[in-house]
């Protein structure tokens, strides 16, 4: 561990990972990812086509699509939950288009987010985004309402935010998702 702190990557103990998957958790992380939507996960042959065009891989995130899949396959659950890479995915979906085995790496990324949410392993910004989505119908919400008024625009944009009925429908939908079950944000 000391060496690891100095920047040398530690040895991956495959036995420990496999035993934890069997004994500590009810399901293997790979099985969960498949359940969460990445149905073709096991077909990955690690060709690397997805990584070659992935913005995450190019900007230095450690667990970009290809490596994420491999880590899932060997059961590196804890290390992955500690890492925020999936939240940086820009959902460009190029990986899914390029994949020769129809693995849909983007779905793996999304499934990983779902797994992380279940484990509350998500950045605070994400919680802000969710709260905003619930309250205004926008995950990313502008703050400059004064500015809108100054130039003669209505305070709220002509979207769900200004449509009380639509907003109520959205809230109903969200209350019926896993989000309500997890209790990440207050839902009155």
């Amino acid at each position, binding site marked *: 561990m000391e060496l690891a702190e100095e920047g040398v*990557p*530690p*040895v*991956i*103990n*495959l*036995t420990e990972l*496999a035993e934890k998957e069997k004994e500590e958790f009810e399901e293997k992380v*790979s099985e969960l990812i498949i359940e969460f939507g990445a149905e073709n996960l*096991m*077909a*990955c*042959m*690690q060709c690397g086509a997805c990584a070659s065009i992935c913005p995450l891989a190019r900007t230095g995130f450690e667990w970009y699509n*290809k*490596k994420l899949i*491999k*880590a899932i*396959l*060997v059961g590196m659950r804890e290390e992955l939950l500690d890492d925020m890479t999936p939240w940086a995915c820009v959902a460009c979906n190029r990986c899914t288009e390029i994949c020769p*085995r129809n693995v849909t790496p983007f779905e793996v990324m999304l499934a990983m987010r779902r797994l992380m949410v279940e484990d509350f392993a998500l950045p605070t910004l994400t919680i802000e985004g969710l709260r905003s989505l619930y309250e205004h119908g926008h995950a990313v919400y502008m703050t400059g309402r004064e500015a809108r008024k100054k130039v003669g625009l209505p305070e709220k944009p002509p979207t769900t935010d200004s449509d009380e009925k639509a907003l109520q429908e959205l809230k109903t939908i969200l209350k019926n998702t896993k989000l309500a079950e997890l209790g990440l944000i207050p839902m009155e």
Partner: protein
Amino acid sequence: MTAEDKPRIGVYICHCGENIAGAVDVEEVRKFAEKLPDVVVARDYLFMCSDPGQEIIKEDIRKGLVNRVVVAACTPRTHEPIFRKACEDAGLNKYYFEMANIRDQCSWAHWHEKEKATEKAKLLVAAAVAKARLLEPLEDRYVELNKDVMVLGGGIAGIFAALDLANAGFKVYLVEKSPSIGGNMAKLDKTFPTNDCSACILTPLMVEVANHPNVELITYAEVESVDGTVGNFKVKVRKKQTYVDWDKCTGCGACLNVCPPKARVPDEYNEGLSTRGAIYIAFPQAVPKKAVIDPDACIRCGGRWFGEEPRKTKDGKPILAPCEKVCPTGACSRDEPRDPNGELIELNVGSIIVATGYRVMDKKHFKEYAPDSPNVITALQMERLISATGPTEGKLIVPSDIPKYLEWKKKIEKGKEAELEARKPHVITFVSCVGSRDERYHTYCSKVCCMYMLKQAMLLKEKYPDLEIYISFIDVRTPGKDFDEYYMRCRKLGIKIIKGKIGGVQRLPDERLLVKGYDAELGRPVELISDIVVLATAMEPNMDLKELARKLGISVGAEGFLKERHTKLYPVDTMTEGIFICGCAQGPKDIPDSVAQAKAAAASAMSLLAPGKMKVEPLISEVDQEKCIGCGICENLCPYGAITLVEVNGSRKSKINETLCKGCGVCAAACPSKAITLHGFTYEQVLAQIRTIAAKKVVEV
């Protein structure tokens, strides 16, 4: 020389499309050729080898215009036979033909120097004309061929070669070193990529070949020496001493269990995972199913050996060995003496097919993989471990507990109650490229390991889904129909791939193994604890393959497998006419490839022997025994062993075997007394060519 015989040479220059005409001024060469001595006509054409091109030559011959033909075109390697045939068809002796290679050796080589190319073409044509003036008519000869074939090796390749030949009506001697045919394939559990049961598809073929009326099966026998040449090989085969009368042995197996524990040795069939007695039957579905006694293992029960008087009990009864006593037919009787050297038989055959297979490398070489641990096994041992005919009847336990299993089985057989305490594996790790792609052992890829590791992993995972299986790969090599799909099936089963070769295995006190690797996909070192480590050890040539090749007069490659005449075009032929190779004796390959090659070798032998006689080109050497001084230089130089020194009227003279001579000319070049003539390339002819080129004009020799 009569006027009729005087050379009237026709020169025919080919444009070869643009291939020659693009660099050589054909018209200039034609005009030059016209003026050469004895040339009566010089023509050119776009493609001389085409039908109309050949017709030009034939027409000139038929009209009596020409009686020698020179074609200046591409290479004689591919086109000489075509033009010779054209001459013959038009009624001219085909050896009155000479070729000048103005494409490969001129236009192609000097494409950017057109003037020089044209000059060189002229010289080459002049040289060919100079030789053509001296050509002599030669006749093809024929030798009778013995139509019987010997197949060496009774594995899947040998079996198929023998069957194809036998079905076509050829008599086949199938010679196998072991007591039973079947080879390595008989040891396999299932076969990729269809997971057919190996025994189920192999055993019927073993029976079929053994019962075929055209096949004489000679097992437990090895080649002692080979004499003769294509069509007439004389092969001495030593049938090893079986110490069991095979005429009487019914393969009942009564003797197997009475052989005492002291006489037990590692069982070859189970790759040493269990033991067999000194008297044994190779394996349950052996063909022929006959027992043999291994004289090195036999402890000579009752203090008696074959042909010796038995000791007597106090009441005068003879003390017999247990096997002798239990045998219901008297096949194991030790009354008669037996020659430890077995029996030497001589067989005459026209062709030989070598299908002697391979062996897998032993784990002992690989100190980095804890070879002393019983739970580190080779992949072939894994085949035995999962096979229903294996040491545990297919029950999956760690190999270190096989002795426990055998003890338990003994108790159960005796009707006692017992609990099997053998440990079941939870983790199995496969290590790829062990001894293959490794400068320390073999540089080649053994070709089948990726697929058989996947196969074993798949079989295990399908049967025991809770098993953790890791396969390490440098890279996965699955070229072939349905092979990559097979690999994907494994991936989908959840077999874990470590991308990188395992570098070390450490034996733990509890007989588990610590495996150390590096995964290139994660970019990190990995380690795990495994119950069994399976080494995909290399396929390598059999120990005695080199010696066999020497006896047969064929060569082995640097890696030790038999060498084919040409990798692409003559893959089952050897440099020795009449000897063909197939299967893993030629190089690592899987079952489909071995079978395909075996059938190719059989077809090659058939097309050689079917006519019953073989044409021998007259372009071979001949000794003028008047001039020969018997120095023997030629005998040592001949690469084909075609030359022997014989006694003629009291002095040593060189003699050339016409069927062996390949016409290489080494002897003629070396002969100090010019006693040897290589027909078609006589001293005068070659000298005329050389001097013509040197003098830049046709010269008289």
